[in-house]
């Protein structure tokens, strides 16, 4: 029988406060298999680990149970201590008597009794643990980055600069994301396009980056380090190599549709280039609106195209690529403003959302950067900005804070004031959140010097009277009900995950939170990784954030990928399923059950097999196997029954 050492941690008073560790030490000392037992204030401390190492030699232990916190925290700490003493790391078991006992109970007697049982189950499991070695698999040193906004671009450039290949997949015809639509950026007011376009050009020119624009992820298979991804590229219907960007096609195109780049404030043709600095730089045809797919209806652009670049018969292409890791940077959309009927969006042309106002401020926007209102082209002299439009409103709209609206609204008001010196911006707010570096100074300066009036309260409604938008609000600081006859109203709409994030998440098998944002592996210590191995997160897909935070997270994710790529192979936990060939009837239920595609049927031998590298050790196949032929290493039926018996006999 194994000689097992049991070490019970006090965790300060976290465990000792509700569990009588001295009593358990006495009770378990004589338990079969226990060669040594001790309790100590902090097992995770260096003296605590030394205690384990010393006792292993002194008492010739060949297995250790540490009764402490959750194994997610310190399992590897103690496994490493065992390995230092040349004992296999799988001869360690952690009995979780903190999260699953002391923290959730108050009765000392009862929690002591429960902790005693938890430790005994760990001893029973350990008795039958095998010594195992990690499984190694090759690593494909290429990374897929999904999303060509600032986060995706930054991550792709960082990895490519590190010397590894990157595939950058962007759904739209051009990379650039929302950042390329912005006028100037807070708090420095530098031109968004001026700092974005060099990065876009760098993507296009980088020898390690392959750009798939106008493309989407169709499927992904395989496992951490060795994925196979299918990328579907939608046809542009224009040959980028032939297109000279002469613009003759748009002149003749008879179809006009609202421009996505200008957020519907201007029109574009069915053949168009998204914006002048588009990467890849080419025109494209919007199949939903083009008439040319019926040759009888229209071929005007094809007739006008001198280099003969237009081809209506282009077909979607599918590419299969091998990759080792994935960075998801799919970005955001603004919360649809149709939801804000009380503020008249959609009904009144002079009620705009934040991105539309960005376009009006932008030099490349519909007004060339001049301040005119959409309805009649007049210069708006009184502009009301409404923060938290549909945000922080758990009853009717989004429950969360979108983090960027306070600052972008202030920037809007400031830029407006720069353009219309005698104009008056009013900002209705509930709180001003200016937590970033130099953000508070930006706010204070705007309020003290720029004459931007902040009014603390929410707007109840907006309606039109003649040429004016009547805004009813409240200043809760004075208790005055406020009425403003505004020329223009700008709604600071919150951020939601970009359209179809849910579909992509299903393809990638990632988790999202209740608001649809991707979930990080740990909110504090692993903020750029998904819980699923090989997937990393960057930018607003993970949660609302501003440009510096999106760039930081992207570089963080890239650093994680670079650390991974610096290995020649990946290691995989040996806790996987095994098949007892004598018992297996080859029924194949396990093959259908496995969510990782790790189970296959050997038709010749008529038995089910396990692909060790694909197996994540979830145990699904083991529970469905009618012959109990499938077993999990170090979690066999016998081990599980022995553990259950501790409770049933208690």
């Amino acid at each position, binding site marked *: 029988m194994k000689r097992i050492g049991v070490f019970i941690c006090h965790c300060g008073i976290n465990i000792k406060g509700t569990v009588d560790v001295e009593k358990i030490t006495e009770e378990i000392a004589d338990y079969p298999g226990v060669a040594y037992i001790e309790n100590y204030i902090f097992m995770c401390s260096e003296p605590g680990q030394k205690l384990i190492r010393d006792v292993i030699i002194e008492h010739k232990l060949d297995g250790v149970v540490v009764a402490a916190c959750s194994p997610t925290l310190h399992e590897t700490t103690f496994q490493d201590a065992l390995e230092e003493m040349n004992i296999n790391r799988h001869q360690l078991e952690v009995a979780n008597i903190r999260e699953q006992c002391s923290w959730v109970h108050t009765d000392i007697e009862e929690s002591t009794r429960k902790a005693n049982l938890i430790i005994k189950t760990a001893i029973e499991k350990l008795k039958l643990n095998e010594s195992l070695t990690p499984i190694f698999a090759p690593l494909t040193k290429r990374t897929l980055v999904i999303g060509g906004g600032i986060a995706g671009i930054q991550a792709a450039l960082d990895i490519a600069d590190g010397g590894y290949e990157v595939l950058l997949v962007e759904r739209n015809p051009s990379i650039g994301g929302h950042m390329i639509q912005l006028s100037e950026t807070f708090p420095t007011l530098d031109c968004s396009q001026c700092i974005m376009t060099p990065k876009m050009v760098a993507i296009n020119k980088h020898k390690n980056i392959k750009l798939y624009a106008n493309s989407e992820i169709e499927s992904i298979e395989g496992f951490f380090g060795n994925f196979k991804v299918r990328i579907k590229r939608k046809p542009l219907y224009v040959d980028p190599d032939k297109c000279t960007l002469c613009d003759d096609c748009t002149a003749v195109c008879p179809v006009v549709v609202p421009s996505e780049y200008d957020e519907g404030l201007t029109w574009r043709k069915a053949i168009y280039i998204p914006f002048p600095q588009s990467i890849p730089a080419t025109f494209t045809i919007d199949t939903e609106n083009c008439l040319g797919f019926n040759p009888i209806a229209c071929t005007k652009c094809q007739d006008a195209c001198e280099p003969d670049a237009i081809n209506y018969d282009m077909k979607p292409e599918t590419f299969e690529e091998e990759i080792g890791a994935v960075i998801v940077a799919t970005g955001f959309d603004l919360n649809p403003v149709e939801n804000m009927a009380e503020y008249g969006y959609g009904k009144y042309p002079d009620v705009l959302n934040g991105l539309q106002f960005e376009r009006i401020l932008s030099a490349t926007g519909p007004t060339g950067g001049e301040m005119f209102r959409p309805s009649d082209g007049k210069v708006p002299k009184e502009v009301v900005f409404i923060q938290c439009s549909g945000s922080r409103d758990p009853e009717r709209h989004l429950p969360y804070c979108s983090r960027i609206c306070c600052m972008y609204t202030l920037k809007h008001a400031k830029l407006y004031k720069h353009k219309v010196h005698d104009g*008056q911006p009013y900002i209705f707010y509930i709180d001003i959140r200016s937590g970033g570096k130099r953000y508070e100074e930006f706010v204070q300066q705007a309020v003290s010097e720029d004459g931007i*009036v902040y*009014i603390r309260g929410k707007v109840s409604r907006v309606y039109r009277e003649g040429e004016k938008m009547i805004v009813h609000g409240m200043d809760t600081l*004075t208790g005055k*009900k406020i009425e403003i006859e505004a020329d223009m109203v700008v709604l600071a709409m919150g951020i939601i995950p970009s359209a179809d994030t849910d579909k992509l998440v299903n393809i990638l098998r990632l988790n999202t939170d209740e608001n649809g944002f991707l979930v990080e592996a740990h909110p504090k210590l692993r903020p750029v990784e998904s819980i699923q191995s090989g997937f990393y997160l960057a930018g607003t897909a993970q949660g609302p954030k501003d440009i510096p935070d999106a760039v930081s997270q992207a570089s963080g994710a890239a650093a994680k990928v670079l650390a991974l790529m610096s290995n020649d192979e990946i290691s995989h936990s040996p806790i996987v399923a095994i098949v007892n060939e004598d018992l297996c009837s080859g029924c194949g239920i396990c093959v259908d059950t496995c969510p990782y595609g790790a189970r296959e049927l050997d038709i010749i031998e008529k038995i089910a097999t396990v692909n060790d590298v694909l197996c994540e050790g979830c145990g699904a196949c083991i529970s469905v196997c009618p012959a109990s032929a499938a077993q999990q290493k170090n979690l066999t039926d016998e081990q599980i029954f022995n553990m259950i018996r501790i409770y049933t006999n208690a």
Partner: protein
Amino acid sequence: MSYKMTRDIIKNSLVQKIEELSGQNVFDCYQCGNCSSGCPVVDYMDIMPNQVLRLAQLGATEDILNSETIWICSACLQCSTRCPKGVEVAKVMEALRSINLRKRIGTLDPKKIEIEDLQNLPPIALVGAFRKLTG
């Protein structure tokens, strides 16, 4: 009744006058309320010192000039000392009093003080009143 705000009301001539007389930018105030919480006579005021600043920011000068607060203020300078934004609230109060006094509102005529009051009032109160209420 709604308070109708326009760009002409904000920073109207009276607000500019207050800023000119006091040398303070009323828009520096971010409404933390430290001035009011430290004021020793705030309990006797009809509007609080921070609200005086807030109303000035909204251009609601009538509300401030008609308030009791500006006369209750004893110019002890607690508010000016405490303000995290460096607004000398006491100077704003002084400016508001001056605007009224120049219109001969709230002035003190020594001849009209009852002889009984003159005998009972501590001399420092009379000195303070003359200093504050005679422009």
